[in-house]
């Protein structure tokens, strides 16, 4: 990109913004700027459907039934220490290879308790059959997982392996998308947004051939959630 190209782009920008202002016509610029910065500062909630304004037990039940309706499966365990056994059981149940690639966020669990399960921590390669990652939050309203990128959470692990297992703590289940954003804002503080925030509602699917639903289009064919009750 040469200097001219950049110069043209800057003028492209000014020309576009200029035309927008002409199209908008006369306005009180001060008031407009105030309205915009107020909205950005306070990021008010709009109407949030009533459905998710329920108690804790009902919210978790809503999340489970909603995400199960999207062809995902859920197993409940009592505490984090039970997760490796639940992963091994899931793989055995589906005749999958006992080989899992772990996100650093779940690497600390007691994987040695499963001597037959081969594990590796880090970014997956194409042929890895199983990825195990940790959720940032979950949304009851729609049965959705929120997965965010960070040092302990490679995003390709949510996408490349055929089978995706997600570890979710009960207290991470929120009501609405807006609740989930609140949690992310608090968690990130000054760091702002992570590079990626994925909302996942079920395994990968397509209806591009004759509007028939097929699972496992490009991402995982199977999505399994291990819900830790503690």
């Amino acid at each position, binding site marked *: *990109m040469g200097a001219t190209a950049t110069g043209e782009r800057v003028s492209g920008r000014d020309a576009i913004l200029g035309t927008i202002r002409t199209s908008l016509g006369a306005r009180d610029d001060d008031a407009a700027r105030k309205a915009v910065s107020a909205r950005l500062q306070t*990021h008010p909630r709009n109407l949030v459907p009533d459905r998710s304004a329920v108690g804790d037990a009902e919210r978790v039940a809503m999340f489970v039934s909603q995400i199960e309706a999207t062809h995902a499966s859920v197993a409940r365990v009592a505490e984090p220490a039970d997760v490796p056994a639940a992963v091994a059981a899931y793989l055995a149940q589906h005749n999958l290879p006992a080989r899992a690639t772990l996100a650093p966020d779940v690497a600390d669990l007691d994987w040695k308790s499963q001597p037959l399960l081969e594990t590796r921590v*880090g970014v997956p390669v194409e042929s890895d059959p199983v990825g195990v990652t940790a959720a940032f939050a979950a949304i009851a309203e729609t049965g959705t997982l929120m997965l965010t990128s960070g*040092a302990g959470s490679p995003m390709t692990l949510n996408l490349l392996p055929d089978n995706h297992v997600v570890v979710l703590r009960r207290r991470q289940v929120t009501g609405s998308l807006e609740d989930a954003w609140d949690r992310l804002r608090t968690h990130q503080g000054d760091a702002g947004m992570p590079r990626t925030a994925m909302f996942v509602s079920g395994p990968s699917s397509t209806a*591009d051939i004759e509007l028939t639903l097929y699972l496992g289009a490009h991402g995982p064919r199977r999505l399994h959630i291990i819900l830790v009750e503690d």
Partner: protein
Amino acid sequence: MEPTSAQFHENVDKALHDADLQTALHRVDKNFAARRTAAVTAMPEFEALRDEAVRIKDHTLDHLDLYLETFEENVIASGGQVHWAATPEDARQIILDLCQTAGARTVTKGKSMIAEEVALNPFLEQHGITPVETDLGEYIIQLADEPPSHIIGPAIHKTKEQVSDLFATHHEKLGKTKRLTEGSDLVAEARDVLRPRYLEADVGITGANFLIAETGTSVIVTNEGNGDLTQQLPRMHIVIASLEKIVPTLEDASTILRVLARSATGQQMSVYTTFSTGPRRADDPDGPDAYHVVLLDNGRSKLLGTAFRDILRCIRCGACFNHCPVYASIGGHAYGWVYSGPMGAVLTPTMIGIEEAHHLPSATPFCGRCEAVCPMRIPLPKMMRHWREQAFDKKLDPARQRVALRVWAWVAQRPALYRRLTGLAVRYLAWRGRPLGRLRDLPLAGGWTDSRDLPAPQGQTFSAQWARQRQGNA
């Protein structure tokens, strides 16, 4: 693509005689509308959410310049760059420059109507860069060398057999010699063939369903996960989006998401809704090193000050397509350009000119279903009428139609006469259409009904019904 909208009548003729297309369209008709209805019924606040969504977009358009500036600031603050493209040529050149800086030979692409609008693929190919579509529907039409026929299901017009033929022809050189007939096998083969392409691509190009000013974020919505692989694996992620995709905050995007998936496919949420902000952070184990957003204008900044402004609220959900009797009869290709359906009938003339596209806004029975289902409450029929007026002023319509319109205008200015004549016409049409509930030909409008049915009017004219209701309420 070269528009063929001017040959609309020939296109329509071809579409109506294409048996495979008619089967496919019947499937669209049966599927989408029912799914939308189910999803909408299950959400008691749906109508109120539509109002909120409209309010958000109107507020954004009123302050479009300010939100775009904020968006740019925040993209830069998170380590990315914004490029402003006034025209399709500018957008293509910017993307080519970026690809060349990255030393790209292959780029993967998520589904993007804006990339179609600027005809990106042929341009990249001319310059020695291979674009690979990764959305299954886009991949199928790329193999077939066709434009999309529906904004959310680009290959909706293809039968399984046609897909099977395409794969057999194009995958043979990749060592896939067996002709597949099962849908699940076809999906699996596409996955197999595309996996290495994701991994070898130097650049990933996606569209955006939303751009968020507050955070400098781009959002994509998919079911396949192809867009996610496209924006995670290559070293450079380029987003191409038109400037009206902007919304102020994460909360605002969330509200519109609630009406988007329900209106599009009847899902509550699509499988993957992904928010991308800047390139990978220093301690991220994966993700792209560079993040660029190309903002396309292509006349939208002007449109903002015209009677067509409301079309800028469009979120490309496809609901108006799925409820349109015209689209259901002729499919997307007959419209002759990238955008089709009621939304395309309004938008296309703004981009290729009313001279070229004047048939599109004329091809409407004004049944109003598109506006009734549009989550963003865009007055599509009203805008088609504006175009018709412009076409009429420019004398673009055939003489007979213009005479008919002038007669109609003359009659319409005389209320008593109008009521009597339309009352007669309605009774006549109801009688003609009785056996089918649809009319196969219309007096004075043979050009219209030669190729499509008009739903027969039920009972009285609107003005008679209105008068009766008013009396009833009084």
